[in-house]
């Protein structure tokens, strides 16, 4: 035991610990993106909308799967929708989720001025944007794939031929689900992030994204149906319908007559259009962020 008192000054301590690589920093941005989107460690009001959308999606899934599990035999053989159909059943909710998530990822950093601080750290603009896209990718893959995985498992469980036989017979469906989810992501994330990068407020960015999808659908439907001749190229502007056309192509089904199909375009044209939209959007976002902060 010492006979002297010691005064400990916490003051400032130099940091001599580990400093991780850029990929770790990008992962930190991805994780922060999840928190931003779901309002974690934020005030309660920031949590309402994202969790509300997730709640609605869960309720729809539960409404489809739970009755089939418990009273499926009374509803007839395989009362569950097929995986291809399910993309349509929940289609609006993932779009709503992107309308919330994309602005939440990009707008506050610009609007609050924190982007200057973040970019003063050892990451550059491209890495910052890539991490934001990564955060949206992980979130949206979860939103599209988790319900599909539960549905597929339910279909396999309820199949008269047996669980593993269903899996073996429908392995191609899993690939189609994955491919379709990717195409949905590329189209909707491109548009959502474009508006999030170029519109100054989150609410306006969300409204611009949803409004563009809605107006493009309405206009192209009426124009293309009136005249599929000279105006057929307008069918390419039915943004929201391209992933559906590609979904039908991947699953080898025809759920509806979508505008691009009515306008006479092959599914690969829809795929190329989605790619073009992604490229244009990426260029526009990059041009915008090169000027910031």
């Amino acid at each position: 035991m010492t006979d002297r008192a010691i005064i400990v000054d916490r003051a400032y301590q130099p940091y001599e610990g580990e400093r991780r690589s850029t990929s770790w920093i990008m992962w930190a941005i991805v994780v922060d993106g999840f928190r931003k989107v779901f309002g974690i460690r934020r005030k309660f009001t920031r949590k309402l909308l994202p969790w509300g959308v997730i709640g609605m999606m869960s309720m729809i899934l539960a409404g489809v799967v739970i009755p089939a599990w418990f009273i499926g035999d009374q509803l007839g053989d395989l009362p569950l929708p097929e995986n291809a159909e399910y993309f349509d059943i929940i289609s609006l909710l993932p779009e709503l989720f992107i309308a919330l998530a994309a602005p939440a990822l990009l707008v506050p950093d610009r609007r609050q001025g924190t982007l200057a601080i973040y970019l003063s750290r050892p990451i550059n603009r491209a890495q910052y944007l890539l991490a934001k896209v990564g955060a949206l990718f992980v979130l949206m893959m979860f939103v599209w794939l988790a319900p599909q995985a539960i549905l597929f498992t339910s279909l396999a469980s309820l199949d008269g031929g047996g669980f593993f036989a269903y899996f073996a017979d429908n392995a191609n469906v899993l690939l189609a689900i994955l491919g379709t989810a990717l195409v949905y992501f590329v189209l909707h994330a491109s548009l959502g992030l474009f508006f999030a990068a170029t519109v100054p407020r989150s609410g306006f960015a969300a409204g611009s994204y949803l409004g563009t999808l809605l107006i493009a659908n309405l206009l192209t439907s009426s124009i293309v149906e009136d005249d599929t001749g000279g105006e057929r190229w307008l069918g390419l502007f039915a943004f929201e319908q391209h992933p559906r056309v590609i979904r039908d192509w991947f699953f080898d089904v025809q759920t509806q007559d979508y505008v691009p199909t009515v306008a006479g375009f092959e599914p690969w044209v829809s795929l190329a259009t989605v790619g073009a939209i992604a490229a244009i959007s990426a260029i526009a976002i990059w041009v915008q962020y090169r000027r910031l902060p």
Partner: protein
Amino acid sequence: MAAPALRVLQLTHDYGSVRSLADVSFDAPPGKIGLVGANGAGKSTLIKLSLGLLDPTSGSIEVMGADPGARTRVGYMPEASALPLDQKAADFVTYTAQLAGLPSRDARRRASETLYLVGLDEERFRFIGDFSTGMQQRVKLAQAIVHDPQLVFLDEPTAGLDPEGRESMLGLIRRLGDFGTSVVFSTHIITDIERTCDWVVLLDGGTLLRSSPLEELGSHGVVRLELHDHSEEVTRLLRARGADVKVEGDVLHIRSFDEIYSAIQSSVAQAGAGIHLLEEANVTLEEAFFVPSSEPPPLPGSRP
């Protein structure tokens, strides 16, 4: 010899057709560097160029011997409000530490320590939006130093603070030097620089007026001589020996030259005058601000 904290070589930057910095060159050593200039002088532009947030139109810049794009050990406290008001101080500072590569656990620990250091220990779990301006400035300072940078850029850190908050912020900035952290402190309040820094860079309208140690700027070149009597005769004799003398009553300000003290001794003896005080006169930073570095510093009281 240690690399300069900032090495700027013929640096020019244009915002469209507006030239914000024109052919600026200087070396500033590690330490507390004051960046002084009126609004629009190019201080914030120089800081953003140093951080790689802007690209120079021409010329080059090195920060602690490295390219600005490296940004491995620099911190930045922006002038504008740059805080997420919907986040808690601890969460925000932790996140900025992670963005400097610190592992999560270390980042959280450092955030707590740094917020304690800036006086926000009790408040660190409150939302930043509920903070006063002074507390928000402290959060901005905390995020700038949380990752233990070698050099930290503070852009107008005392802006918007009341006198007490300003004193406190200046105290924190002075302490940073004791921690071995170099500071580039931008402000248009000259007295803040005089009280805080040991090197000063003066900018005006995008051009460099001066880059020198504060000490040298404040004293060099002028000797103050207070006489009991015969000041007119001493002035005449000094001028006859080629001295540049300004007279204020019995006080003479003499621009330094070789053998100045011999000239003073001879002139005073010849005139039979009595010396009351002889010292190096201090030229204030404010007075020096108006004289380009290519010219000798002004005599006291000669501010335009």
